Structures are given as structure tokens and as C-alpha cells.
């Protein structure tokens, strides 16, 4: 019941190579199917995102170099030579493969530490493989555990809790002031790429209403149309300030477009309801003394960048807690795996001993013709009882008690010890 993992990611391969080894959803299905149909793997799953391509599998019992075979397959599938992949592919087996997947699901292996999207991508890849019957008991258990790890790490640590992009930080700050944004309104001043990122996050967080202002009206119309907002003419800027709870500015201007007096008037008109101003413009679009106006919260690009840096450090500090959860779940998975292995070994052991016992009794009793049938039966029963006491009962205990299995790290050694593979009954 070996587990193999072959893959490459943003740490081991250039973007050029990652692009060439990436699997589209259709290719992922095809590759998984071919790996099984060619007899390389019994269970297979392809996980392919923009930063990684990984093949997880359970090889056949009699396979000798399954990892090598998967590597060859990857190269031929993408019409690459092994030399081109050399040094970029990583190979993991058993507990290392399990740990790797759990770290991936937790976001520890991501380019952006703790990012949440990867868990969804792992879930999707697993669901596709499950629906097509490409996974079996081992990969099912492993990926279900990985999804649990991802969920636990997100719930029990701060790894993904704090924003690490400027745009998202601004939106999260708004949530620290207003709570849920579905009852709040945003005004976007400037329709550039930076504004668009903020708008995207605002819409994801369910902002109630959105208005866009831009010197070039066409850009405002385009942005508003894509995100279901309204356009306000540039000339109405001052009047438009009474309306929102959140203002995001990102325009090219040598002087601040929002001064203390403008915001002061707007605050009076809006009954001093809290106002968050996110100034993404360089030079700044909002005068710094606006922060003195009662109930306003002003953040410029530097403030947000500093928050991002702090949050990145905070995420790094959460790694040990995430690793503890991963250790716990790897241990749990390995116990389960050992339990399944113990069941298989014990079945073989029982069959083997039964056959040995039968042959041994027949052979020895043949040289004792004086024994009655009753005595022969008694001798056979005594030997059976002896075997049960010495071997079977302890073995049964081992199956029932996880602690014993932990102590017997390499349970498979019993196969070699009793030559279970060589002389199957």
C-alpha cells in the first residue's frame, strides 16, 4: 500500500516549465486514466494549479519503480525529455507524500503563504477523480484528511486570516469598521487597475452599492458595468461624497483632490457617520489632515503596505501551529494506514499458518500409525491451540491496539519474517 507523489511547483521549476507541465482539467482526467489503464498506478489523482502540477498515486503491489514510471509518463504526456524535467521534479513516498499534500492543502506550500484558493483546488481535483472512480481507499482517505487539515488550519490558526495584499487589506479594514459590507456603500474615485482590484474584493465581500468616478468617463463606465456599479460624473465629486461609507481614490493628480474642508463638509452632510478613505494614489489624493476630521479613518498606500508587511510576518509566525495540526493528521493517517496493512498481513499470516499446520500434522502423524483417529485429532487440535496462543492471539491484539502498531514501525517486515509473499497458500 505504497503512496507515491511526483510533481513540480513554483519552488522547483520556472514558470516556463510549469506552463509546459500544467494539466488542463481534461488533460488531468486523461492522465489519471492512462496511469491506471497502463498499470502504472492502481489509484491516481492529478492536482494542477498555476503554481504546481502533482500526480498522486498508489502503485500496484508488485511494482518495482513506480515513481520512475510516473516520471516517464509525465515526460511523455507533455512531450518532454526527462532531461528537461531533471532537477525540477520532486519525488515523495508514503508519509512524506502525505505530509506534502497536507502542507499544500494548508497553504504552507503556496507562493503566497496561507492563501485560501489552494484548498478549493485540492477539493475540486479530488472530486473530479472521485467521480471518475480514479481514486481508491487510500487516496480517498488521504485527500479527505487533506481537506480536513486545510479546514482546521484555517479555523484554528491565523495563517490565512489576515490580508496580505494592499487591495484586500483596505477591504478588511473596512470590515473592522463597518462589519459586514452588505449594508454599506463604496465610492471609487479613479478607474485604474488598482481600483479594480479593490472593487473586485469589495464585490466579493458583498458591498451593497458601488459608484465610480473617473476623469475619463469611458473607463468609469467600463469598470461600473463589469461590477454592477453606477457612474457619477467627475464634476459631481464633492456632492457624491455625502453618499458612501467607503471612498477609494486612485487618480493621477499633483495635489490632493480631497481636502479637509471638502471632507469636513461631506461629514456634516452625512451626519458624521463613519467614513473610511483609502488613498491608493501616488502622489496622495487625500490631504493628510483629513484624518483629523471626526469619525474619519484615512489610510494611504504606505499605511496599507505596512499592514501587509505586518500581516505577512504574522502569517509566518503561525507556521508552527499549522505544522502541529499537520503532524497530528499525518499521524492519524499513518495509524489508519497501518491498521489496514495489519489487517492484510494478519489475513495472510493466518492462512499461511493454517496451511503449515495442516502439512506439518499430516507429515508427522504419518510416521505414527499406532495412534487412533481420536488421538490424531487431539494432537492436531493441540497444535492449533498452541499456534493460536503463540502467534494468532498476539497478532489479533496488535490489530486492535494502535499503540502496538506504532511500536512496530515496519509492520510489513512480518511478511519477510514469515515469507508470506513467497509461498501464498
Amino acid at each position, binding site marked *: 500500500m505504497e503512496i507515491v507523489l511526483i510533481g513540480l511547483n513554483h519552488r522547483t521549476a520556472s514558470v516556463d516549465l510549469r506552463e509546459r507541465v500544467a494539466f488542463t482539467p481534461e488533460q488531468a482526467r486523461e492522465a489519471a486514466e492512462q496511469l491506471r489503464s497502463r498499470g502504472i498506478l492502481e489509484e491516481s489523482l492529478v492536482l494542477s494549479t498555476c503554481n504546481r502540477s502533482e500526480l498522486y498515486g498508489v502503485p500496484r503491489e508488485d511494482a518495482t519503480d513506480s515513481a520512475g514510471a510516473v516520471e516517464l509518463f509525465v515526460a511523455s504526456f507533455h512531450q518532454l525529455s526527462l532531461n528537461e524535467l531533471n532537477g525540477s521534479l520532486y519525488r515523495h513516498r508514503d508519509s512524506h507524500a502525505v505530509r506534502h499534500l497536507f502542507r499544500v492543502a494548508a497553504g504552507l506550500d503556496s507562493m503566497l503563504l496561507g492563501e485560501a484558493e489552494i484548498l478549493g483546488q485540492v477539493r475540486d481535483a479530488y472530486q473530479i477523480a472521485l467521480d471518475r472512480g480514479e481514486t481508491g481507499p487510500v487516496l480517498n482517505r488521504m485527500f479527505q484528511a487533506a481537506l480536513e487539515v486545510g479546514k482546521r488550519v484555517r*479555523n*484554528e490558526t*491565523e495563517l490565512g*486570516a*489576515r490580508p496580505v495584499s494592499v487591495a484586500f487589506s483596505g477591504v*478588511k*479594514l473596512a*470590515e*473592522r*469598521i*463597518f*462589519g459586514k459590507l452588505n449594508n454599506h456603500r463604496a465610492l471609487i474615485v479613479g478607474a485604474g487597475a488598482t481600483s479594480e482590484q479593490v472593487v473586485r474584493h469589495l464585490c466579493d465581500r458583498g458591498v451593497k452599492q458601488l459608484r465610480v468616478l473617473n476623469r475619463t468617463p469611458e473607463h468609469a463606465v467600463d469598470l461600473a458595468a463589469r461590477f454592477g456599479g453606477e457612474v457619477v460624473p467627475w464634476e459631481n465629486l464633492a456632492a457624491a461624497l455625502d453618499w458612501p461609507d467607503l471612498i477609494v481614490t486612485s487618480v493621477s493628480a499633483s495635489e490632493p483632490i480631497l481636502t479637509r474642508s471638502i471632507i469636513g463638509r461631506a461629514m*456634516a452632510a452625512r*451626519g*458624521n*457617520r*463613519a467614513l473610511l478613505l483609502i488613498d491608493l494614489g501616488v502622489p496622495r489624493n487625500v490631504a493628510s489632515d483629513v*484624518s483629523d476630521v*471626526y*469619525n474619519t*479613518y484615512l*489610510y494611504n498606500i504606505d*499605511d496599507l503596505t*505596512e*499592514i501587509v508587511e505586518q500581516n505577512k510576518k*504574522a502569517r509566518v509566525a503561525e507556521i508552527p*501551529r499549522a505544522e502541529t495540526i499537520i503532524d497530528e493528521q499525518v499521524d492519524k493517517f499513518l495509524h489508519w494506514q497501518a491498521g489496514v496493512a495489519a489487517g492484510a498481513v494478519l489475513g495472510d499470516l493466518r492462512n499461511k499458518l493454517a496451511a503449515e499446520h495442516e502439512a506439518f500434522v499430516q507429515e508427522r502423524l504419518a510416521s505414527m500409525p499406532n495412534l487412533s483417529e481420536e488421538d490424531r485429532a487431539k494432537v492436531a487440535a493441540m497444535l492449533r491451540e498452541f499456534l493460536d496462543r503463540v502467534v494468532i492471539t498476539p497478532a489479533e491484539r496488535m490489530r486492535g491496539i494502535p499503540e502496538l502498531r506504532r511500536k512496530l514501525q515496519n509492520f510489513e517486515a512480518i511478511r519477510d519474517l514469515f515469507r508470506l509473499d513467497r509461498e501464498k497458500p
Partner: protein
Amino acid sequence: MTSPYVIATLLFYAASLALYVWNLREPSRVAGIGATSCLVVGLALHYMALLARSRLIHAVPYDDLFGSLSLFAWLLAATYLCLEAIHRRRAVGPFVLPIVLGVFLLAHLPEARPVKAPPAQGPLFAFHVTLNILAYSAFAISFVLSIIFLVQNRRLRDHKLGVVGWRFPALDVLERMTRSSVLIGCASLAAGMTAGLIWAHRLEGRYWDGDPKVIVTVLILLIYVGYTFLSRTAAWRGARASALCIFNFMFVIFSYSIVNRYLSHFHRYF
């Protein structure tokens, strides 16, 4: 403080506080659920401690200052638990539990002695006292929430959210929670006062015998009603309203301590 219920309550409240603090520092499902569970068990044990105390001194808990303090702590914890359940926020727990724990300790440290009960009692009197103490508990929570609001507001304005700042409820949520607490407090206080006045009229044939406690209580009701109106006006909305709420609670403390101890002749517990 010999009752085993008192010691057990103390232990569970302390455990709950420790877990709430842990949960604020390093949010975890286990710590959060543990904190709430300990608080629930603590509340149940506290109830048993109140019952045991009443049996010992042959009086209801609110017949003496220490009993009323214990009841206050119990209602404070219970009100907080309701707020936590409604708003699903545990970040306020670390700030409410120290008050619960402190008041509980203060109430149960001295040996409980039989007290001279008021001249006549009954359900109306029970309502009067319980509702007033409930009002004070609600005001205490609004006080804690207002402090958190001011701290969080300062952090947000100074761009220094820090680790804990990201875990506190949003300012808007804190404001709404404060208003809810004050509303509960005002309603309880108004009902409690009414019950008290009717009870006094039945007992002595008049509603008010010049006790300053009544004047101070009416004043408390007025300033909190004032808060509910002012907190929605342009001039007071936000930090100013929170500061006002903190200021108002000083009157509650004054009423509960100085007025009860030195000024009131009818609400004196000693």
C-alpha cells in the same frame, strides 16, 4: 467562602477567563468552546452558590450588599452569555469575565451572616431588585463594550491594529452591542423602578419617602436614555457616544457604592 459551590464557581470562572484570553491571543475552536462551556458551568455553580447562601442566612441574595453583588455578577455573566450567543463574538469575554470574577470574589470573601430582611417582601420586591440588578449588569457590559470601542477606534485611527485589533468585533458591531445593552438596561431599570415604587406605595402608602437612591436611579435612567438618543446624532455618533457611556457608568458605580453605603436610608444593606 467555605461553600464548595463558591470554590467550584471560582475555578470555572477563572478557567473560562483564561480560555477567553487564550482564544483572543491565539484563536482556536477548542479554546473558544472551552471558554463558553466553563462559563455555562460556572453560571450553574454560581446559581447553586447563591441558593446555598440564601439557605444559610435565611434570606434571598439581594437582602444584603454581598448577596446583591453576587447576584449582579451572576446576571452580568448571564447577560454576557446571551450577547455572545446573539452576536457570536467571544472577543469581549476577556474583558467581562474579570469583572464577573472580581465582583464574585468580593461578594463571597466575607462570611455570610443572617441579615435583617426588609419590612415586607413578595414577588413585586423580588422583581424590583432583580430587574434593577439586571439593569446594572447590562450597563456594566455597555461600559466594557464602550472601552473596547474607544481602544479599537484609536488603533484604527492611528493605523496600529496589532494582533488583537484584527480579532475585535467591528466598530459598528460594538456600537450596536452597546446600544442593545443600554436598551436592555433602560427597560429593566424602568420596570424595576416601577415595581419598587408600587411596592413602596403598598407598604407605606406613598411612592417616595425622600430616599436619595430613587433620585440617583432616576438620574441614571435619564442619562442612559439620553445616551440612546445622542448616540444617533451627528455630533455624538461614534467615539463621543462611547465616552458618554463610560461616563454614565460612573453614576451606576456611585449609586451602587456611595449612595447605598452612606446616603440611602432604605437601600442601605448594613
